[in-house]
């Protein structure tokens, strides 16, 4: 959908993921979309070099989120939200409607 603008579809998926869930790590995103971890890491590097995302280590996992200091963040998120309105119900359900509210340990997901 935004591929002509963003350059490739992996980066579009990463940005939709961050817009939906607020943060993500390469392995988790790789599993969600069935894309190689390397491919995801490469795009995260590109986004981080461009100042669009920032990362921090949480335990042994590098977590990425939007850089709140990116000057065009509001506009970028607005485009992402608009583009996500055009996703099919199937795609929305498959990738962008995972449970995000808390769940006590021991309970089934």
């Amino acid at each position, binding site marked *: 959908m935004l591929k002509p603008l963003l350059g490739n579809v992996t980066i579009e998926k990463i940005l939709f993921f961050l817009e939906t869930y607020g943060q993500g790590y390469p392995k988790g995103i790789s599993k969600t979309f069935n894309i190689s971890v390397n491919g995801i890491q490469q795009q995260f*590097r590109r986004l*981080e*070099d*461009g*100042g669009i995302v920032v990362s921090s280590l949480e335990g042994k996992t590098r977590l990425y989120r939007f850089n*709140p*200091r990116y*000057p065009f963040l*509001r506009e970028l998120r607005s485009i992402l939200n608009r583009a996500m309105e055009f996703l099919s119900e199937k795609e929305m359900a498959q990738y962008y409607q995972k449970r995000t509210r808390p769940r006590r340990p021991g309970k089934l997901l």
Partner: protein
Amino acid sequence: MKTVWEKITIRDLAAVISDVLRKNGIEVTLVGGACVSIYARNKYISYDLNFITESSLKELVPILNGLGFKRKDGCLFENPKCKFLIDFPMPPIAIGNEPVLEFNSLRTKHGIIILLTPTDCVKDRLAAYFFWNDRQALEQAVLVVRSNKVNLTKIRKWAESEGEIEKFKILKKKLVAGV
């Protein structure tokens, strides 16, 4: 003048890099923690020099290689003899949603450094405090306010526009309390 990389100060290094790049037609602006070090007279030491430029990495690499700084990762350069890293974050220069349009210039024996004004340097540090609750950044803002002439009215207005007036009040309290 021969540069002693092992002993160079952050201010001198900023001037050397700015000067060599300028002589090669590349304009750079110093932002981030290095501005704090300069304005706070090294009461806080940053080990990164972040320069913003519109020039490409392709143009920067041979010039920095000539100074012994090799590209490490992304836009990061290091010289094994020097404790400071040089980074070139992507333009534009912005603090929050606002572009930065006014800069300061410092004349040194090694050349001229173009950098954030003390007021924008404080806003830059406060932005990190606002967004990530980084207390170190707040302390750095305090150091810059104490050692320089800054426009606190302008900073207050900006903090208001960012929805962070409460955190601005914390800065004010620290300044009044002298802690």
